[in-house]
C-alpha cells in the first residue's frame, strides 16, 4: 500500500512539527514516539500500526534522560518514519519494520541535533557584539533562525525517514521465512532499554520498590487477561 500525496504531505508536516517539539518549541510531548507514531498512523490510515510502532519505540525513548548538555538520540522524527513503516505493513511485522527504520533514524537524528547546536553557536558568535550590547533585535533573530534551522532539520529527517519507510515496506517481507524475528528483536531491545533505564533511574531506595510493584501489577494484569 502506497500513501496518497495528501497523506505524504501531512506526514512530512507532522514530522516537522514533531522534530521542532523535541527541543525548540513547544516541548509539548508531541515528540514522544508513542504520540508521534500513533498520530502518523492516523494520518496514513492505520492507527493500530502506528500505535504498535510507537509503543515499542517508546520503550527505547524511556532510556533517554535529556539532561543539560547530554547527547541523546532523537526518537521524534524517527518515530514518524517508524509509524509510516508500521502502518504500511502487515500487523505481525509492524514492530520489526518500524524498528528497522526508526532506530537508525534516531541515531542520525541525534547527530543532526548536535550539528544544529553547533550551527546555533556560530550564529551567536556572529552577533556577539550586538547581543553583548543588549540589542533585542539580534536576540530575536537568533531565536527565529534557531527555529527555522530546526524546522529544516526536522523536515529533512522526515523526508529521508518517510522515504526509507515507504521503500522498506515495498520489500516482500512475507516471502522471508523468519521475518517475525525482526519484531521480536526490536521488542527485546526495547525491553532492555526501558527496564535498564528504569532500574538505573530508580536507584536503590523507594523508587526501586515502586518499579517492582509496577512490574508485578503489569504482570498480574497480563495474566488476568
Amino acid at each position, binding site marked *: 500500500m502506497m500513501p496518497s500525496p495528501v497523506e505524504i504531505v501531512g506526514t512530512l508536516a507532522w514530522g516537522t512539527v514533531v522534530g521542532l517539539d523535541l527541543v*525548540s518549541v513547544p516541548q509539548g510531548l508531541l515528540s514522544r514516539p508513542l504520540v508521534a507514531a500513533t498520530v502518523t498512523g492516523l494520518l496514513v490510515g492505520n492507527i*493500530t500500526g502506528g500505535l504498535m510502532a510507537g509503543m515499542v519505540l517508546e520503550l527505547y525513548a524511556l532510556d533517554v534522560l535529556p539532561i543539560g548538555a547530554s547527547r541523546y538520540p532523537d526518537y521524534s522524527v524517527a518515530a514518524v518514519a517508524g509509524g509510516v513503516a508500521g502502518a504500511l505493513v502487515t500487523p505481525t511485522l509492524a514492530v520489526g519494520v518500524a524498528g528497522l527504520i526508526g532506530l537508525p533514524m534516531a541515531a542520525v537524528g541525534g547527530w543532526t541535533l548536535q550539528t544544529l547546536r553547533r550551527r546555533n553557536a556560530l550564529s551567536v558568535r556572529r552577533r556577539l557584539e550586538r547581543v553583548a550590547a*543588549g540589542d533585542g533585535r539580534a536576540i530575536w533573530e537568533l531565536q527565529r533562525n*534557531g527555529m527555522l534551522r530546526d524546522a529544516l532539520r526536522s523536515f529533512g529527517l522526515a523526508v529521508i525517514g518517510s522515504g526509507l519507510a515507504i521503500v522498506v515496506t515495498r520489500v516482500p517481507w512475507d516471502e*522471508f521465512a523468519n521475518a517475525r524475528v525482526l519484531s521480536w528483536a526490536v521488542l527485546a531491545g526495547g525491553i532492555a532499554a*526501558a527496564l535498564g533505564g528504569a532500574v538505573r533511574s530508580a536507584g536503590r531506595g523507594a523508587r526501586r520498590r515502586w518499579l*517492582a510493584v509496577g512490574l508485578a501489577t503489569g504482570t498480574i494484569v497480563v495474566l488476568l487477561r
Partner: protein
Amino acid sequence: MKPRSQALLRLFAVQASYTYERMLGIGVGHAAMPLLRNVLATRSARARHEAVARSADFFNAHPYLAGVAVGAEVKAEQDGASSAVISRLRTALSGPLGSLGDQLIWAGWVPALVGVALAAATWAGIWAVLAIVVIHNLLRFRLMSWGLDLGLREGLGVGAALQRSWLPRAAKDAQRAAAFAVGLAIPIVVWRTLAGASRIHVTITLLVGLTGAAVSVLPATRSRVTGLRLGLLLVGLAVLVAGGVR
C-alpha cells in the same frame, strides 16, 4: 498583549537557539525582554540594554522552570540589584532549577504519563495517547506560569522560596509514580506485541531483553551499552536471521 503574557508565551521557545556555550541563555533573554522593557521603562536606554544583555548570558536550567529565573532576574533588575549580584543569582539558580526540573519532569511526570498511556493504549487506543498530551500541557502551562510569578514575587529570595515550595516533594512523588508506571507498562507492551507468538519465541525474546537490561545496568558496561546500541545490534542480527527466503 501584557508583558507577563508575552514572557510566558516566549518561554515555550526558550530552547529555540540552544547552544552548548550559552545553553538557554538567549532564550531566557528573549523571554525576559518584554518584562524588562516594562519594569525599566523609566531608566535610561543604556540601563535597559545592559539588563537585556545580562539576561541573555549563559544560563542552564530545566526549560519548564526557566521562568523562575526570568521572573527573579526581572524583579532584581527592578529593585536595582548590581550586575554582580544578578550574575550570582543566575549562577545560584542554574543548579537547583536544572536538578529539580529534571527530577520532576524528565524523570518524573513525563515517564509517569507515558507509562500510563503505554499500559492504557492496549484498551483505549489513541485516546490514551491524546489524553496524556492534554494533561501534560495543562500541567506544564500551570508550572511555567507559577514559576514566572514566583520569580517576579520573590526576586533575590527565590532560591529559598523554591526550597520551601511544593516542588522538592512533588519531584520525589513524581519519580515514584514514574517508576511504578514504567514497571506497569513493560509487561503489557510485551504481551501486546508478542500476541500470537509461540511459547519458545516469547521465552527467547524475554531472555534476550532481560539480559540486555542486566548488561545495561552493570557498572562495568553501563556507560557503553545504551538501549539504542543494543537495539541496533539486535536488529542487525535479526536481519541476518530473517534473510532466508521461504
